[in-house]
Structure formats: C-alpha cells, structure tokens
C-alpha cells in the first residue's frame, strides 16, 4: 500500500520559503513547541541468525549462567536401556505408561495425606509428551524436554457418567492418551467398549472416582470436556515435570513397557 506524497505543497512551500521561514521562527519563539507529522514510514523484519556477530560482552555475561545450567541439566538421574517414543504403540505406549504411573506413585501419598483420599487412576494427554526418552543416561534435561511446560497435577472427583464420557472420548479420538495401570479399557476392533475396570472392579454407578490429570486437560485442553462438572477439584502443588524428575531419581533403570491397560482387539 502506498500513499503518494503531495508534491504541489512542496513547490508552494519553496516559493514562499522566506515568509515561511520567518513565520516559522515567530511561531517557534512564541510557542516554543514545534509540531511534527509523520510523512514516511518504513518497516522491516530482521532475522537473528548465524550471519550476525555476537556481542562479546553479552555473551560473557551469559556464560556463567549457561555453564551452571548445563552442568545441572546434564546431571544423570536415571538410565534408559532403550529409546522410548510416544509413536511406539497403538493405544498405550511405554513412555506414556511411565508418565501416568509416575504421577500415580508420586501424587497418591500427597493426596492421601492432604485430603485422606486415594487416586483411582491417572489420565494425561498424548500430545503432552514433547520428546522421547533416548537410550542411555537420563538427565534433568530429558525431563525438561519430555515436559517443557509448567502444567501441574490436579485431581478431579468424577461420577461414573463422566467416566463413561471419558471412555467415549477415547474411543472417538483413538489416541494413546496415557493412562495409569489402575484402569483397564478394552475396545473391540471398531473402538467399541468391551471391558472397563478400575482397580479390578467394574464401574460403580454410585462411586466418586478420583482421577489425576493436569490443569491443562482439566480446563478442557485437547477437548477433554468431561472433567466439568465434577465432585471437587484438588491440588497437590506438583508440576508434572517435577513428578518425572523425582520419579526418575528413585529408579536406577527405567523399564517402561507397553501392556494391555488400554487396548483394542484387532481381528486376526
């Protein structure tokens, strides 16, 4: 888009330059305030890339922070005998099972202590696994890469109808959303529910189930709208990433496995 400058005005102003200049001085003397107006604007976007030199003072200032940070992030907290990726598995993955079970194990004692209740199972989201756990040493950096976000665990009280809505949701999205081992969901080959048990028992229509998830999903993230309305929401002030870090620190070697907690039967 272009607006052409008014050239006529410029010619006129040249012709009466003397008067103009004098008038202007008078104006400046009496008002001491000169008015300016914008007659041209230029805009551009500059890419920050390798072609630019780094400011050495700034770089030197960052260096000790970077050094301390990297030393800490590279500290080894566990070991992975294989690479675990969220792509490996149909409706449950080793890495997803590891995360959901870690949330159960680390948060249930706090939930019990604080609210005198027990978590029934954990549901996280497949999209929330942001990186794989590579084979070899597991470091703090691994935990930051798997879970770069600040999401915290929340525990939501749900009646059976909401649990059924959750199962319906899972059958529609057909994704390996991580579930902890306390729940078992079996679909047939066309994603219809065949079996549902929680802690080994069938769904109890009168019971309130305590489902641990994260604040993002509780607030309707990934279209998980079944968390509202509910029978109460409980905080344990625990970020998912910190759950992972604390969990990894307790285990010498991670041995997560794909199992049958959440499966669909495929016709042979």
């Amino acid at each position, binding site marked *: *888009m*272009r*607006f*052409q*400058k*008014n050239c006529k*005005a410029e010619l006129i102003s040249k012709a009466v*330059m*003397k008067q103009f*200049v*004098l008038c*202007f*001085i008078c104006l*400046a*003397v009496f008002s001491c*305030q*000169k*008015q*300016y*107006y*914008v*007659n*041209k*604007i*230029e*805009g*551009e*976007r*500059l*890419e*920050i*890339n*390798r072609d*630019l*030199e*780094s*400011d*050495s*003072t*700034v*770089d030197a*200032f*960052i260096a000790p*922070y*970077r050094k*301390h*940070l990297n030393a*800490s*992030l590279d500290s080894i907290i566990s070991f992975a005998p294989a690479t675990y990726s969220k792509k490996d598995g149909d409706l449950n993955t080793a890495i997803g099972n590891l995360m959901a079970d870690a949330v159960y194990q680390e948060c249930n004692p706090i939930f019990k202590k604080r609210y005198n209740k027990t978590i029934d199972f954990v549901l996280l989201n497949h999209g929330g696994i942001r990186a794989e756990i590579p084979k070899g040493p597991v470091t703090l*950096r691994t935990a*930051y890469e798997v879970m*770069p976000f*600040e999401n915290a665990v929340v525990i939501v009280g749900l009646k059976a109808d909401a649990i059924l809505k959750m199962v319906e949701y899972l059958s529609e999205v057909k994704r390996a959303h991580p579930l902890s081992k306390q729940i078992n969901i079996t679909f047939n080959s066309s994603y219809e529910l065949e079996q549902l048990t929680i802690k080994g028992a069938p769904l109890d229509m009168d019971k309130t189930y305590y489902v641990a998830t994260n*604040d993002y999903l509780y*607030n309707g993230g990934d279209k998980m709208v079944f968390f509202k309305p509910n029978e109460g929401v409980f905080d344990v002030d625990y970020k998912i990433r910190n759950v992972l870090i604390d969990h990894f620190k307790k285990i010498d070697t991670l041995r997560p496995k794909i199992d049958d907690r959440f499966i669909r039967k495929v016709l042979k």
Partner: protein
Amino acid sequence: MKRRDFIKQSLATSALTSLGGLGFDLLTASNKKKITILHTNDVHSHIDPFGPNDGRNANKGGVARRAALIDTIRQENPNTLLLDAGDIFQGTPYFNYYGGELEFKLMSMLKYDAATIGNHDFDNGIEGLLKQLPHAKFDFLSANYDFSNTVMDGHVKPYEIFVKDNIRIGVFGLGIELNGLVDKRMYKETKYLNPLEIAQDMARILKQEKKCDLIICLSHLGYDYKNRKEKPSDLNIAKSTQDIDLIIGGHTHTFLPKPTIIKNAIDKPVLVNQVGAYGLYLGKIDFYLSPGQQPKSEHKTILV
C-alpha cells in the same frame, strides 16, 4: 543561498540569541527527523540461539546476536526506542533455574526502554514478577491492568513519554484477560480493564493532553482471533481507535513478514506488527517526521 545565510546570521546575532542553540538548530538542520522503533515479543526465555538440530528454528535467535544488531542500528540512528510486547518469561530452563533474573538483566544490558506484561510473566506468581523487577532497568507499561490491590502497585505505569530528538513518543501498554488463561492464585487481585476503552482514552490523553508526536501501543492482546472476532485483539484496537501510529503485538506468536496496515476509526492508516516468538526476529519501524501541521488530507508514504 546567500539570502538564507544572511537570515541565519542576523537572527543568530539578534532576536534568537537568548534561545541559545535552539534558534540555530531550527534553521540549519533539514528539520526532518527519523525515529527508529525496534521491537521483540514472546521471547520466552530464549537466551541462547537454537541449536543446529532444532528444525525450522535451527541456528536462529540468541540474545548476544540481537544485542550486536541493535547496537549497529543505534549507531546509525541514536534516536531509537527498543520495546518488548511481553511473555519475556517461560520456555527454557533459564527461567526455571533463575526465575527471570537473567532475562531482565540482559534486556537492561540491551537498553530496552519499555516492556508490557504478558500472561506468562505471571508464571512464578505476581510475587515472582515483583522479585525480578530490581534487575530491570526499563519501564513496565500496562494501562489496562489495575495492580492497586497487589504487590505490583506502583511498579507499573500506564504509559511513558520518551523524547528523542525533540520528538515526543507516547507508549502505552495493554494486557490480555487473565481469567481462564492464568491461575488466579498467580495474578491474585490484578484487575483486567476493557482494553478498547483504555486504548481510546490513552490515545486521547497522549495526543491531546500530552502533545505526543507519535503514539505506540505495546500490546499482549494477540494479533487476531478468527473464530472469536469480538475478542480484543490488535486488529480490533487498530480499527476502533484513532491517533495510534503503531501497535506492537504479542501473545499469538504471529510471524508477520511485514507490518499490517489497517484503517483506523477515522480512516487513517495504523501499523500493526508482531515478530513471532523466541527472539528469532527483530522488528524495525522507521518514522520520518517533518515539521508543520498535519495536512488535512493525509499524504503519507508507507513502505513495508
């Protein structure tokens, strides 16, 4: 030319001597002024450049490179303002480890003039933000967050007027609605006021009362919401206000290859710009100003 010299000299030795340098300056300089506005948004604690294996962002970004570029631009034109549109915090372990201290210290080294507050700047709570303020040698501007019942009271201004080469540049800040986006325990009693009404007020105050030559809105509202047109956004503010020259946006991580030109409420052009996120780009807008009254029918060249 001779006549002009004569006028200059005679004036310098008579009527205007009492004004010192001012009279001389008025006549010798071409009187055209250039103001450069540099801006970033949603840097999200990205201090180091992305590594070589980081997909589409590989080898881009980095504060030390940005510092060198800004320095070059300032040497070219000292009449430069450096602004940030919020979400300084959160996104790399630098934030988790140091709580935003390094981000603010580096922005101070780069001589940022002002920033507005993004939703992620509340990630360590309002106390977490307050705690890092001593490291920030630049202004925090927000006209539509009322902090009066919080610990941030007195630490944030609605606007600031910067004077560069005698040009008065009014900059005000706008923040996004926090309810539903940020945990209430984080932002506490921060009150969110209607950004459109505030923007209209701010533009009027800065133009009419404070006699600003340029007005810049530093916004963390987001560029545009296609499915929720009524939600306050930079495009909505641009269309429904007057006297704002430039809206620098954030929040939506919108990578605009060039500023968008919008017709404002009185059919005059206003620029809206946003440079994505993570310090991958630096936005640069140059305003050229001439003395005199604004012509009735606006003739302005915008090259973007």
